């Protein structure tokens, strides 16, 4: 299939296309597309260092975006059953194994997370699983701080951001391993701010078919947490579902399903604000952003259909292993150790 896509792309590029003109003797044959993709993904340094590959990478500019589309498609498939957003997988993996500058990877990461949230948001709102009275105040705080995070991320040196990204990813792994989920947290009484904002409601649990009444507490602590979450989301382009859900569920007492649904609504606003900062500062390249968004959304649709087939616990362990590897690599690249 990849062969045929490569063939089609070559036909579309045409004899007068600029990449052929730049390298008329060395066009990439169909039989080389699959090895190129594999080599590019498994060992980007070799692809850059080997003289033959330098020539190839200069000619076949589309190999990397095509590889990006394929990788994002598979990330989209595993993200849904693993219960993580696309951005948290996308940024560490793509920044670690593709030749793109971190600025564009973070810009694309925000758009990937944003697109996923926009796709899921409407149905979650209609089902009552996303609650605007919960999400709107938190999103306002986090979207403001995500702009500051984006500005900070673009201003800091690349190595510093990579080190911080590595530490953040390893921290996310710790959260994924240690944070326990509470299906229906026991909230004895709402605090005054939660009462003022009307942070309570009823939803129908699809599994049991029962109506579940809920309310929230510790709102000031929650607002402070979302201020911090926004900075991380904007700085690293990670999306923030990995942090939103534990903050809403474990700290503020929202039922797990309401936390997950409202997190998606919050993401759609937080990532929008940060994405504008990247867009306005030249840190969004269409050749990276578009295949990432399209690949991830197609993959997520397949992932949602495979939800009952794939074993979630195994996928989750795979994701944790991938994040450990990618986070460790980001840290080593930032520190200049052995890479």
């Amino acid at each position: 299939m990849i062969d045929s896509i490569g063939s089609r792309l070559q036909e579309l590029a045409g004899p007068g296309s600029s990449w052929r003109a730049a390298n008329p003797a060395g066009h990439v044959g169909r039989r080389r597309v699959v090895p190129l993709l594999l080599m590019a993904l498994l060992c980007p340094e070799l692809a850059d260092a080997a003289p033959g590959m330098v020539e190839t990478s200069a000619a076949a500019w589309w190999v990397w975006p095509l590889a990006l589309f394929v990788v994002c498609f598979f990330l989209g498939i595993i993200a849904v059953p693993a219960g993580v957003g696309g951005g948290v997988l996308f940024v560490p993996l793509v920044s670690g194994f593709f030749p793109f500058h971190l600025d564009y990877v973070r810009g694309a990461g925000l758009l990937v997370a944003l697109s996923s949230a926009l796709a899921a948001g409407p149905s979650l709102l209609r089902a009552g699983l996303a609650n605007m009275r919960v999400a709107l105040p938190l999103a306002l705080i986090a979207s403001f701080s995500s702009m500051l995070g984006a500005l900070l991320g673009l201003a800091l040196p690349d190595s510093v951001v990579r080190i911080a990204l590595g530490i953040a990813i390893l921290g996310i792994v710790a959260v994924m391993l240690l944070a326990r989920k509470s299906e229906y947290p026991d909230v004895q009484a709402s605090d005054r701010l939660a009462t003022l904002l009307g942070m309570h409601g009823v939803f129908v649990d699809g599994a049991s078919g029962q109506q579940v009444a809920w309310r929230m507490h510790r709102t000031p602590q929650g607002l402070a947490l979302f201020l911090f979450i926004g900075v991380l989301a904007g700085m690293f382009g990670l999306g923030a579902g990995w942090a939103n859900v534990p903050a809403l569920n474990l700290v503020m007492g929202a039922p797990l399903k309401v936390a997950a649904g409202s997190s998606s609504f919050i993401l759609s606003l937080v990532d929008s604000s940060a994405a504008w900062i990247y867009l306005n500062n030249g840190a969004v390249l269409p050749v990276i952003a578009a295949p990432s968004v399209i690949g991830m959304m197609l993959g997520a649709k397949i992932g949602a259909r495979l939800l009952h087939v794939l074993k979630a616990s195994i996928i989750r362990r795979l994701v944790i292993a991938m994040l450990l590897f990618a986070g460790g690599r980001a840290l080593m690249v930032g520190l200049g150790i052995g890479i």
Partner: protein
Amino acid sequence: MNKISIAPEQIRYAEWLRWSGWLGLAVLVGAFGLYVTGVLPPVIPVDQLPQVWRLPSRELMLQHGLQGGWSWIRSITRGDMLNMLGIAILSGCSALPLLAVTGIYLRRGDRLFAALCLLQVAVLVLAASGLIAPGH
């Protein structure tokens, strides 16, 4: 009898978000198709992309004379810049649904949430304005 009533503002927000999100995605997919097939020539030649995507964003802007902000609008007929339109629609598509539900909150006398909606729109407009940039 397990039906629960969903707040009308959530229903309206969901409808507006669904349409604006799909519009952004459709424009992005269409623009990307025109870009990679070479139907619309890009500002940055595709054979230069492997050098370009290694550069920090500020260096790329300097080398190619890009001004940031909304300057891409001036080159909207170029393949790569047309993609920015799809990305801008996706990044800004929450603003209209927020404005659409502000009226519902106001009619109900819920001035707090109407104000929160307007503040959120203000944050999005500030982010999109291009007025804030990192100090290097």
